[in-house]
């Protein structure tokens, strides 16, 4: 159906054969709407797959027990060790001034667990280096390590958030 045919008809009478271009526009718009509806109905799948918020590692009491390190292993100045808490890595050591320190051992660069090497905390993956205050002093790490509050209670070591609650 050409444009001439159309103009030959009285203006107020529509053409029996549907206008192709109008039809395509309509289908396009409807297709867009259908895509939006279909997309929205995938939301449950998205929620199914999206991770649930991780539980607070320090729990209700605000503290977590340190695994694989006993108080005796950090009794002397300069002693320290890699251990774990709530499914994460931790480094606990006693510095030269006799202070007990703890850092979450996850490297701020790419997430490897750094190793306690006495004076420094060293990451074997890309050579990131931190000093005993957790400050990044060499290699790729962009930020200092996360420091934790550490204390002994009834023969066990516990860590807590620096500023958080938790008996200690």
């Amino acid at each position, binding site marked *: 159906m050409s444009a001439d045919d159309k103009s030959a008809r009285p203006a107020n009478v529509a053409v029996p054969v549907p206008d192709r271009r109008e039809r395509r526009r309509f289908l396009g718009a409807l297709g867009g709407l259908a895509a939006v509806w279909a997309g929205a109905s995938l939301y*449950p799948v998205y929620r*199914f797959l*999206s991770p*649930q918020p991780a539980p607070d590692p320090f729990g209700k009491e605000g503290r977590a027990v340190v695994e694989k390190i006993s108080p005796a292993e950090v009794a002397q100045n300069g002693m320290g060790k890699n251990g774990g808490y709530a499914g994460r890595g931790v480094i606990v050591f006693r510095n030269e001034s006799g202070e007990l320190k703890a850092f979450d051992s996850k490297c701020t660069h790419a997430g490897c667990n750094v190793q306690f090497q006495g004076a420094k905390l060293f990451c074997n993956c890309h050579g990131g280096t931190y000093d005993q205050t957790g400050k990044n002093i060499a290699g790729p790490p962009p930020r200092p390590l996360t420091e934790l509050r550490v204390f002994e209670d009834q023969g066990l070591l516990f860590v807590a958030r620096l500023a958080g609650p938790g008996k200690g």
Partner: protein
Amino acid sequence: MDERFAPVPPEAEESLPPPGTLVGQGLRALLRRYPIWPVVAFFGKKRVPEHRDTGWYALGGIAMLFFAIQVVTGILLMVYYRPSQPWQSVQRIVTEVPYGALIRSVHHWSANLMALALFVHLFSTFFMKAYRPPRELTWLTGLGLFGLVLFFSFSGYLLPWDDLSFFATRVGIAEMEKAPLLGPWMADLLRGGADVTVDTIGRFYVFHVTVLPLLVIALLGVHLLFIQLQGVSEPDHFAALPGEKKRYRSFFGEFLVGEIPIWLFLWGVVLALAAMLPRGLALEADVTAAAPVGIKPEWYFLAPYQALKLFPGRLELVGMAMMGLAAGSLLVVPFIDRATPSDARGRLVAWLGAAGLVGLIVMTVWGLLS
């Protein structure tokens, strides 16, 4: 024209969207690079005869729809399922993971509807006599697919490791064990031991998520290819029509598109069933406790279960043999009933099939009620 590109086949030009549009341009670019037009033309040839039984042709596609739902929901469930902690991980899915209960229920209901669709597909092709030469292998691959799907259901049923699934699997394999010769050997192989244990889950899980899907996809490909090559079978009353009275619809352009609203509806039915009748999770399987009251196999295994009850004690073997014979007769039917148009033997086969179907339904309903 750059000679690295081939021209667009003229017959393709007719059915492509105008070159001005994005899709039209893209498809032409594709055709100039890869000579896929013969493949498209090959699939485009498929057509569906139009007669009073055309509706039955939709069943295969419907079963495939449910299979697709199974693949997607199955993959989703695998994200959280742990064969080492079967019950605990399913419980986590249904009580902790957002919409986990919904997705599991969809998987459950779609499995049931797939089995139902296949039953109908099997019997409709049987009564339309689509198994006759030259389509024997299409029929056999179809039967193979049906068997695989039943094994799918059987293996999937064990995975939640609750009371029901444990006893159902134990009973199912015990029946298999009674088969002469290979029975005990196969049962041990399936169970991974003398009894159903967590080890059995490992095996069933591997079957359920890798072996069976691969087999189904391969066999389904062959099944569909056979149909594509030979065309859809025509029942006698249609084949007898004079040529000018035979009417066809193109398969992909018309028949399949016309089916889409039906698929949408059936997908809605699955959702509605999942919403109204969510699949529950019974207590974790306790291998020491008594089987729960009123335990029964799923409906698609009910008919043999109920039929076996008719053969008490030693006679059970006779019953199993008879059922084996009935199932086996489906395998040989294309080689017995060969005449087109149907002859006396063909009619007899149809009547026997009808009797079998009635028996199946009666046994299933009886099993449901008892």
